[in-house]
């Protein structure tokens, strides 16, 4: 007892925090036995196909269902007029607006939902959808957000034209949604007026789409006898969906069961409530049979949950040594035709005010103007904690612009501006308190690993020969774990998360959480947290999420909030159990609670380690009468965790690219990513998340965009056009880490999955721009496709031999 090898053996047996435990969820997936929404098949189920608008902006003069209804297999055709009697033709959005469930008199974006055809199978439904005749009168469309607030701009949303606000302060134009600002405008302006140097760039985060491999969909099943509604759906936030469905339908929330099942990737695409879900639910209520609705890929890219479309202007004021004195960032946000993006109610522009990044900037001001356009709604998605990607992109680009203007090395300028390790916790000039960080150490480790000085020497030699080589640096600070309940809510519901743990008599346990895995490996990592906290083997800890009848309420998995919030709930619930276990152990060992100390998997008597009770023994005792007088039986606990602060993971990345000036092709030679996500629960899973996030960053920076023509027609909404990198294009990733625990999180963990996306995108752009820096190029907008990079070469007169 107590010797080191024994302790180590007991520790190893737990397979708890810090071990690269292989994933529990793999067994079903490697056999093709996952249960995704399109795998659900219920007796009598009908299939729904959506009729979509070919126009971006048009009045609906009439809908003729007759041919569709005559089509074999077609059971019904639903339009806005059919949903009106139950008042479900419009629905409230998470963004404080309303959205047409099925177009009501007009359509406001191409591919908008106009009708749903219900049929006996998906082929008949598609036949029927093709036969619904809609008479449209086309209207002029607004595609460019910069034209949305022109005095003569067509009014997109006639339904709210007279409204002076849509949830977020006064509107100045019928196509204006909100203006949001933070910081000290006058103070910032004063610094700019007197600064030694200022820089300004227009920087676009183009409209992209997260494009998870599984599209969105649901199966709604209403039981007319019991009044019970069961909805299987691909949701990252099943509990929030249940609440929204209850509010919309009037069905008591206790009679609604939302089941997440297995989800084929989410990346923020699967947080909102989409019209397809609502129509399927209404249709099931009306028909009494289950209704399945599954998006096609084109539907998915065209209509659900896009990301970005932020048209930014970045400005920095600095002294001649590159010390930043003030920051002024503004953005014009294209939210599409309805404000349905996901954000905390009090943060209409999300967490954009994290835009001071990793730097000690004394004065700052930022403003976001959001407008309607004739494009699909959304904006907040894609491995992005509510606009943090746009914010980090701006600051990480602008610090490079400043470095170039002053002729200071891009690593050195970061060192001069970093928040120093002794300044944490550090409150930014825009009001966020960064919990912990060690930025200098992270950057130095990376620069050494890649031989930064050697790379710069090589770059100088190549430039002398007329070759293009770029070195990109990004030293980002993320903001995740929404969020502190005082300030963070959606539809009035605070963004806590929850864990309910029940320990069985034989020492195994089941834990249920309000989060929802989409590939992040929650069944494994949560079990590891609980294993370490409870001293029970993670093998015997079962994790369940996503079934609202079973799991406690929570806001789900998005914005890297599972570890910061759900993981904290798991640790705290486990600690409640351990506190009760200590009382039982004291009773069993006939000592005072204070005489006991915890060791891996047991309580032992201080100074007498042979006297001990393992958690397994205590679990059995908790179910017998041999417990302290007056104590309740059982060994359960539930925690609803309200995070005291956000967490602030950070990292230092370096990317090296070689660009062919004759073709514009960019080859990523090296990408080195150091991430600090605080305490590391499962290093294997962390590394996997980083590989995936970097690959999505590569996709965004190098090839993705959802383009439109001037009439609002999509110019690329299938995988024929929309870039998803294959194994061939995807670079090899090198990963590294430092560990700076969060001081306010129960286990010091910060969350990780978004960081590589958020930090990766500016790193790629910084590398591409750096390749042209000696030619006077300050900025290039994404995506850096060969054609666009070649255009830059051509402009510089270097594209011909």
């Amino acid at each position: 007892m107590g010797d080191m090898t024994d302790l180590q053996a007991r520790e190893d047996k737990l397979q708890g925090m810090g071990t690269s435990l292989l994933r529990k969820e793999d067994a079903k997936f490697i056999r093709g036995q996952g249960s995704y929404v399109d795998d659900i098949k219920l007796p009598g189920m009908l299939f729904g196909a959506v009729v979509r608008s070919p126009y971006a902006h048009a009045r609906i003069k009439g809908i003729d269902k007759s041919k569709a209804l005559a089509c074999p297999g077609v059971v019904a055709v639903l339009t806005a007029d059919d949903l009106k009697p139950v008042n479900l033709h419009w629905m409230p959005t998470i963004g404080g607006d309303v959205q047409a469930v099925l177009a009501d008199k007009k359509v406001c974006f191409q591919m908008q939902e106009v009708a749903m055809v219900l049929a006996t199978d998906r082929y008949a439904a598609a036949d029927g959808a093709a036969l619904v005749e809609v008479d449209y009168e086309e209207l002029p469309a607004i595609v460019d957000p910069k034209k949305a607030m022109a005095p003569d701009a067509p009014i997109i949303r006639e339904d709210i034209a007279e409204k002076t606000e849509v949830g977020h302060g006064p509107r100045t134009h019928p196509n204006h949604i909100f203006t949001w600002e933070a910081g000290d405008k006058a103070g910032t302006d004063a610094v700019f007026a007197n600064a030694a140097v200022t820089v300004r760039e227009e920087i676009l985060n183009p409209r992209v789409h997260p494009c998870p491999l599984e599209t969105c969909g649901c199966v709604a099943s209403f039981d007319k006898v019991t009044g019970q509604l069961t909805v299987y759906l691909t949701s990252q936030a099943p509990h929030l969906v249940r609440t929204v469905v209850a509010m919309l339908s009037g069905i008591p929330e206790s009679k609604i069961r939302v089941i997440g099942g297995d989800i084929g990737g989410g990346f923020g695409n699967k947080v909102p409530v989409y019209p397809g879900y609502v129509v399927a639910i209404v249709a099931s209520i009306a028909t009494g049979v289950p209704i399945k609705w599954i998006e096609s890929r084109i539907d998915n890219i065209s209509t659900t949950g896009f990301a970005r479309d932020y048209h930014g202007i970045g400005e920095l004021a600095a002294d001649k040594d590159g010390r930043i004195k003030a920051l002024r960032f503004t953005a014009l946000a294209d939210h599409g035709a309805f404000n349905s993006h996901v954000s905390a109610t009090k943060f209409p522009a999300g967490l954009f005010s994290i835009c001071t990044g990793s730097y000690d900037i004394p004065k700052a001001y930022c403003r976001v103007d959001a407008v309607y356009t004739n494009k699909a709604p959304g904006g907040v998605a894609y491995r992005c904690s509510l606009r943090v990607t746009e914010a980090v992109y701006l600051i990480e680009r602008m610090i490079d612009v400043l470095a170039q203007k002053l002729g200071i090395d891009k690593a050195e300028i970061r060192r001069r501006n970093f928040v120093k390790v002794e300044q944490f916790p550090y409150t930014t000039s825009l009001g966020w308190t960064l919990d912990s960080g060690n930025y200098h150490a992270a950057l130095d480790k990376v620069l050494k690993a890649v031989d930064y000085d050697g790379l710069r020497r090589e770059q100088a030699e190549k430039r002398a020969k007329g070759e293009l080589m770029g070195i990109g640096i990004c030293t980002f600070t993320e903001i995740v774990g929404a969020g502190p309940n005082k300030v963070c809510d959606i539809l009035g519901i605070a963004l806590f998360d929850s864990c309910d743990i029940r320990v069985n008599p034989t020492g195994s346990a089941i834990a249920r959480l309000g989060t929802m895995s989409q590939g992040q490996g929650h069944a494994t990592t949560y079990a590891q947290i609980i294993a370490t906290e409870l001293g029970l083997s993670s093998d015997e800890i079962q994790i369940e999420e996503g079934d609202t009848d079973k799991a406690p309420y929570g806001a789900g998995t998005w914005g890297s909030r599972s570890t910061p919030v759900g993981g904290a709930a798991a640790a705290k619930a486990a600690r409640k159990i351990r506190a009760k276990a200590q009382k039982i152990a004291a009773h069993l060992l006939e000592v005072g609670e204070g005489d006991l100390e915890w060791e891996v998997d047991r309580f032992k008597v201080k100074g007498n380690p042979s006297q001990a009770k393992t958690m397994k023994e205590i679990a059995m005792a908790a179910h017998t009468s041999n417990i302290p007088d007056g104590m309740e039986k059982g060994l359960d606990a539930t925690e609803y965790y309200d995070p005291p602060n956000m967490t602030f993971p950070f990292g230092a990345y370096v990317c090296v690219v070689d660009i062919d000036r004759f073709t514009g092709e960019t080859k990523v030679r090296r990408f080195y990513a150091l991430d600090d996500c605080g305490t590391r629960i499962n290093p294997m899973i962390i590394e996997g998340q980083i590989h995936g996030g970097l690959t999505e960053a590569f996709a965004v920076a190098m090839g993705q965009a959802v383009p439109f023509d001037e009439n609002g027609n999509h110019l690329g909404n299938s995988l024929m056009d929309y870039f998803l990198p294959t194994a061939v294009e995807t670079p090899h990733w090198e990963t590294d880490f430092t560990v700076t625990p969060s001081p306010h999180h129960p286990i010091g963990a910060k969350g990780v999955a978004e960081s590589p996306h958020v930090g990766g995108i500016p790193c790629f752009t910084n590398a591409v721009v750096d390749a042209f820096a000696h030619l006077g190029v300050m900025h290039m907008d994404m995506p850096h496709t060969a054609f666009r990079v070649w255009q830059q070469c051509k402009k510089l007169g270097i594209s011909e031999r």
Partner: protein
Amino acid sequence: MATQHPVAFKLNGKGVEVVVEPRELLIHTLREKLAHTGPHIGCETSHCGACTVDLDGMSVKACTVLTVQCGGSDMITIEGMEQGGVLHALQQAFHEEHGLQCGYCTPGMITRAYRLLKENPNPSEAEIRYGIAGNLCRCTGYQNIVKAVQSAAKKLAATPA
């Protein structure tokens, strides 16, 4: 309703027979008539590879094959990889190398890698990357998938056929 055609083929070693419309795609027949939901639908345009099955010794995308084209064929899906309760080396390697996250691409990816290793039992990293380029994954960044295929190739090479 269009004419219905009986089609018989071998699925994971067992004879099956279905009656389908001429336009019915193999992926729908497998998933909806034959309860093989391992192959998934990700794009319906032959780009993503989530629906990959092995048809007469070739990797094909079941979203762009008509079921009526499959009469008399010999088909293997992810459901046929495990033999006698023993996982295929690829299935084991995907688990051990963390070659999957959400699991949606995994059945197609493993089925493709199965044929790749038959065609080239000792592929280089570049050959693996090229060989699985018809199968998209949004979660893993492919690095651990490549490792898994390499690891499985080694194991299969060490096992007498």
